[in-house]
């Protein structure tokens, strides 16, 4: 499946839009709806990756709306430390994407040089459609994945240092998510925050964000049937 790791802030924004939104839209949202200011902020945030990302996205229909995720077969995604909330989509083709592709690594660095030169041949050689995601993974990860026990596949296919990237546009609607995942120990913390709040205790600002995100996930469960899963 496809997964993406997000912060409590992004959970709140996606809850507001009822869908996963792309980085430029998020920057515009942060800028209070000012598109020009949002795009300036987006450009500044990308630093040396800006030209590479723009050139890569120019190859696609709706490229500026791409969502970047990782192929995931059971874990918390490669970026839990940046965002403890992991959104998953088992079959992105059911989202009727205008663009989708599977790549054997980080597209921001793999296909466009720092000078902005696109290696189109390499993209053509390496890209796979969603239906061929397993083949893309095998070609990239063999021999590590061949012969490994099944219980290690999740870690081999998706770790913080190595992952199969999936890009899709536009972002899925919340009802198209398969599940939201958090580490079990983090879910325990979120439940503890919920308990403290109901007991009348004051939470810090960051704790309030975390609890708000947890409640948004529970709302997605109630409204869209998206389960909240604990991962060991």
């Amino acid at each position, binding site marked *: 499946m496809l997964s993406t790791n997000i912060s409590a802030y992004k959970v*709140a924004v996606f809850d507001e839009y009822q869908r996963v939104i792309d980085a430029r839209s998020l920057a515009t949202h942060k800028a209070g709806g000012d598109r020009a200011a949002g795009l300036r902020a987006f450009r500044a945030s990308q630093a040396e*990756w800006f030209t590479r990302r723009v050139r890569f996205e120019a190859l696609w229909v709706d490229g500026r709306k791409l969502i970047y995720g990782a192929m995931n077969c059971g874990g918390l995604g490669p970026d839990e430390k940046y965002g403890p909330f992991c959104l998953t989509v088992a079959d992105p083709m059911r989202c009727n994407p205008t663009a989708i592709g599977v790549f054997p690594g980080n597209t921001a660095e793999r296909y466009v040089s720092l000078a902005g030169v696109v290696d189109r041949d390499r993209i053509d050689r390496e890209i796979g459609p969603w239906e061929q995601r397993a083949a893309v993974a095998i070609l990239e990860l063999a021999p590590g994945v061949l012969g490994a026990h099944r219980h290690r596949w999740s870690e081999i296919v998706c770790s913080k240092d190595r992952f199969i990237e999936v890009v899709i546009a536009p972002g899925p609607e919340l009802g198209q998510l398969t599940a939201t995942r958090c580490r079990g*120990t983090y879910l325990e913390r979120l439940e503890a925050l919920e308990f403290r709040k109901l007991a009348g205790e004051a939470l810090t*600002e960051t704790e309030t964000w975390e609890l708000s995100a947890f409640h948004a996930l529970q709302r997605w469960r109630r409204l869209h049937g998206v389960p909240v899963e604990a991962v060991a």
Partner: protein
Amino acid sequence: MSSVAEPVGEGFTLVAMPPSGETYIARDDHGVLWLITPPGVPGPERIDTVVLRRAVAEHGFERIDRVCDSWADVDRARQELATTLELPQRDELEEFDAEDLRRVLRHAARMHVQGDVLRPRRVAHSLLRAPAAKADDEVYTAILDFLEQLDNAPLLTPAVAPPADAQKAEARQRMLLVS
């Protein structure tokens, strides 16, 4: 990958965080960068400037670069910046379903087993106000049963252990006063 030099400030620095601030990047007084995760998520992790810039480019972290006097000061800055004013105010109890109520009740029961009496009672009473509790006899009865269990339970003495931090010490003091 290019290597853009990062300024090394004096003292502690809150370097970057998403607007919600549950995870953040800080520099210690030796100039070492740390990615600090919330409790329950593995970490903290020593990182380099490439990871810092990737956090900004790919994960929505914002550069802060506020110099602080101590780790406590870093946390104060983090709390100040992670303002929740933009969060919509919701009465979650109004939205809870039976599964939410059971989850909270399970946690309250765990807290009671650990010696907490007052807060589980307060929480259980609040759950009774939820429309989902009033609409579901089974859940309503479970909450009442739990309250009855709290009424009948002997006052527990919390396990004696050195407090891990000031907050726990304060909580333990409150429980002792109740006992």
